[in-house]
């Protein structure tokens, strides 16, 4: 088992109130697998990913990577951000080199690795541009290259395609799928875009509304590349969508029951 979560619970405490964001989450991620995590908004998907990245800690329960407990960022776990999070004072290549630079790798090696990856994501020739000169899609390509530069075993993607226009996102998803196929690295993608999850995932983890629990794990056994017009694709979409819709209604009910405030609070806390 590559990544294992057992009974992971996340409670935010803001006395006198406590809000349970995640409750007893247990699942495994296999080596080389592409796992997508979907769930109603505000359910704590991103928190879950952040905990695997070592940016946040579970209140109880345990996360293991290659059998060892994971409590801090790991050198073999990398991340792609929704906001791209490129450092604006660094050029494209310097951004890709960032992780290697932190590791103290020699300059020549860094450049070699970065150039190869820029080649792969189709940014050769743009290496000396600054992020502000790039389009959203290009920025995320840099983000992906940066994540891959440290040669991770696990790549975490937090809504990685959400801030990009749909046409560009479509192309980028195909490339990520290709990178996954070639590298056999483990990918975890948090998304609220269900077709995106079905297109990419080997398995989809469906979370319930808050406090989030594992509602279902759906294996996607379709040939790649997958077209959203295929009948099987549509069937899977319908199935998972109805699961999510039930959750959505569930969470809407809670709104009506006056938990809106708490909801907002949770979201604010997560933003922090």
């Amino acid at each position: 088992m590559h990544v294992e979560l057992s009974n992971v619970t996340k409670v935010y405490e803001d006395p006198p109130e406590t809000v349970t964001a995640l409750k007893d989450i247990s699942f495994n991620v296999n080596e080389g697998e592409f796992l997508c995590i979907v769930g109603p908004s505000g359910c704590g998907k991103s928190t879950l990913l952040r905990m695997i990245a070592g940016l946040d800690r579970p209140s109880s329960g345990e996360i293991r990577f290659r059998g060892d407990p994971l409590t801090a960022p790991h050198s073999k776990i990398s991340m792609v951000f929704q906001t791209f999070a490129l450092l604006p004072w660094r050029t494209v290549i310097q951004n890709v080199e960032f992780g290697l630079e932190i590791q103290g790798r020699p300059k020549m090696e860094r450049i070699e690795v970065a150039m190869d990856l820029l080649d792969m994501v189709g940014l050769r020739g743009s290496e000396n541009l600054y992020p502000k000169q790039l389009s959203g899609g290009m920025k995320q390509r840099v983000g992906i290259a940066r994540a891959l530069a440290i040669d991770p075993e696990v790549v975490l993607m937090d809504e990685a395609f959400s801030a990009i226009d749909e046409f560009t996102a479509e192309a980028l998803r195909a490339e990520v799928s290709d990178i996954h196929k070639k590298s056999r690295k483990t990918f975890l993608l948090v998304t609220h875009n269900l077709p995106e999850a079905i297109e990419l995932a080997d398995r989809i983890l469906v979370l319930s509304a808050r406090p989030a629990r594992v509602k279902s794990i759906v294996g996607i056994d379709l040939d790649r590349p997958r077209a959203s017009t295929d009948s099987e694709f549509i069937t899977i979409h319908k199935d998972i969508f109805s699961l999510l819709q039930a959750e959505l209604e569930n969470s809407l009910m809670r709104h009506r029951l006056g938990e809106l405030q708490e909801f907002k609070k949770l979201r604010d806390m997560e933003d922090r």
Partner: protein
Amino acid sequence: MPFRLFGPRAFHRVHDKTRRRFRPPAWLLSLIAIFAFWESISASGLIATDQLPPLHEVLLTLVQLAVTPFFISHVAQSLANVTTGVSLALVLVLPLALLVGMRSQLDQALTPIIMLVGALPDLAILTFLVTIIGRGNVAAVAISAFSAFFPIYFTIRQGVKEIPADYFHVASVFRAGRAQTFTKMILPSIFPNLMTGLRLSFEFSWNVLLAVEIIASVAGIGTFISTNLGSSTHSLTYGLAAIMTVGIITITMDRAFFERLENRTKRWH
């Protein structure tokens, strides 16, 4: 980028093929007009020359002063004082402003107090300092550090607060230590704010310092001005020339140093 004292666009039309005629920048015309007015007033005897010396004399004195070792040493002393003061402030403020920018509880505890202290009049603090430390360069450096403190504090604090949370996440995910997070992430993030802070500090400090030199009679350009603004015509000319020197130094420092540093950050912003 070549160094230009009054902005990059001043003379670009000289090379324009369609306009071979020299077009001076607008500010130069205004300056010439003011100088002509000044010169004509003293030449007409409307104001006595012992109250307003003719401009050409002042300018001549300015050139003479610029090569006088005694005057240069006074200018150097003032610049040394202000530089020491601003550097001292920077060393003290940087860690504090960083901490405050990252910990909102600390910010709530300290910033109101710092605002309160910042609202105290610099020159009143000065007289207080002089009674404690006594006259001399120490008092001058202390007050210039004091007035430099606040602009740096508030600009850096703001800069740190504005760092996106994801930049910190990037630093953590790629396992940057404290030192690396500071040098590779925080410092470049706040660099534009740091420049603005230093620029403001320098301006504040420099003005206050001249007052200090006059009040606390510390060696420096301020003392030079005050001792020369005596009664005789000759001295008034010296004083005015020295004041102009201060103006020229201020604008040169600003353009030559701070503006260039700020321009560097424009490449990425």
